[in-house]
């Protein structure tokens, strides 16, 4: 359980970091909070010859208001999602996601962006980011580009970043006024990675569902949106028949893994149940919001 020897680089700025990545390319790996990377290094699942540690890049630690959005720098720790006023006001679903995740001791070091980049199929933040329509800013010496999280993943733990790219920021659009939200999951113990989970956002216009976003985790190779389920709900009034129809659609459309933690069949059953629970909770919150 000891990492292989590597060259350790500690850039102080984004410019230095992208220069290192340009120099070493696919030999290099980025170290953010290390809460996934360090276990992979210790188990020698990852054997980079160069490690670019971004933790001392002071300019990447921030949570700030952007145009109708909350921008979070890539060295910002997950724990801040739980105590930041701007997050509580504009994207409260992020604080709910944090409550389902790991433990404070992990969140004190793990970064918001690191979790999204790592892309564990069972992780909460990628799904919530997709439901919110979040975007990543990736930079390299060639320039910067914006990548919607919904288009970021390519299968298990794979994403479309080039070896010389660093994600500097994630941008979460502010939730609509009166929008209800929910993140629910089933895990063996609180704080373990989820067997399956569903995140949803729901807003009403009068009695009808006007805006709905549903994304799932632990139910495929990566977190993803459930667009067909959303279409069934949009413009409708709520009813238990409708929820059951949506739940069975979700259950039959997801492609969960079959592993030592749970069978695919069990995960499909969870998908149906969790979709309903998540919608109920989001709708409850939307109605409370409208009442207050």
């Amino acid at each position, binding site marked *: *359980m*000891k*990492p*292989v*020897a*590597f*060259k*350790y*680089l*500690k*850039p*102080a700025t984004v410019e*230095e970091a992208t220069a290192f990545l340009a120099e070493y390319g696919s030999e290099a790996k980025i*170290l953010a909070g*290390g*809460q996934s990377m*360090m*276990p992979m*290094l*210790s*188990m020698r699942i990852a054997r980079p010859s160069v*490690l670019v*540690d971004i*933790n001392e890049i002071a300019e990447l630690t921030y949570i700030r208001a952007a145009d109708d959005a909350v921008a979070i720098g890539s060295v910002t720790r997950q*724990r801040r999602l739980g105590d930041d006023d701007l997050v509580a006001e504009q994207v409260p679903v992020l604080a709910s996601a944090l409550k389902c995740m*790991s*433990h*404070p*001791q*992990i969140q*004190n*070091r793990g970064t918001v962006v690191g979790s999204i980049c790592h892309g564990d199929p069972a992780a909460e933040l990628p799904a919530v980011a997709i439901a919110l329509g979040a975007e990543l800013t990736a930079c390299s010496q060639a320039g910067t580009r914006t990548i919607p999280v919904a288009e970021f993943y390519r299968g298990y733990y794979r994403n479309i970043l080039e070896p010389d790219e660093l994600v500097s920021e994630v941008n979460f659009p502010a939730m609509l006024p009166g929008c209800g939200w929910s993140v629910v999951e089933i895990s063996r*113990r*609180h*704080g373990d990675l989820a067997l399956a989970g569903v995140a949803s956002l729901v807003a009403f216009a009068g009695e009808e569902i006007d805006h709905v976003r549903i994304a799932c985790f632990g139910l495929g190779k990566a977190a993803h949106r459930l667009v067909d389920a959303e279409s069934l709900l949009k413009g409708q009034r709520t009813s238990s028949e409708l929820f059951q129809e949506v739940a069975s659609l979700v259950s039959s459309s997801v492609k969960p893994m079959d592993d030592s933690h749970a069978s695919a069949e069990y995960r499909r059953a969870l998908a149906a149940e969790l979709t309903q629970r998540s919608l109920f909770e989001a709708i409850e919150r939307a109605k409370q919001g409208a009442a207050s």
Partner: protein
Amino acid sequence: MNVQSDLDSRQVTVTVNGKQESLEVEGRTTLADMLRQEFHTQGVRVGCEHGVCGSCTILFDGEPMRACLLLAVQADGHEIKTIESMADGNKLHEIQEAFSEKHGLQCGFCTAGIILSVSELLERCPEPTDEQIYEILGGHLCRCTGYQQILQSVRLAADMLLEK
């Protein structure tokens, strides 16, 4: 720019339990190994070495973190506290007293990490709810106690610190 020319070692300056020291460490050495081997703070227990058990938990700039998931080189310029910082000579810290009083430990392997996590909780939040205590304890595995005595120990520690 901070480039390490030699693959193997790098100079770091770390404050461990209030004492600043400079030393050479290999890039791949974990903070847990450096603390045990170079600083002889063997209260830093190493159980799983991949972040799950919590026995290696230390305070890094005051916040509880896994020492097995940090590199020694990352401690450069930072302040580390281990369980060895808690007692004052032979006088135990209130949290340690409370664990002793309420039988919050049996083998003790998990205890150092738990006490450090609890010390940060009680500093931030002197009158924690049970839910807040559970949240912190969730980050630590204990194979002996069944957690109930630990919960009672934390409650007693909170009372003792409030009375101080």
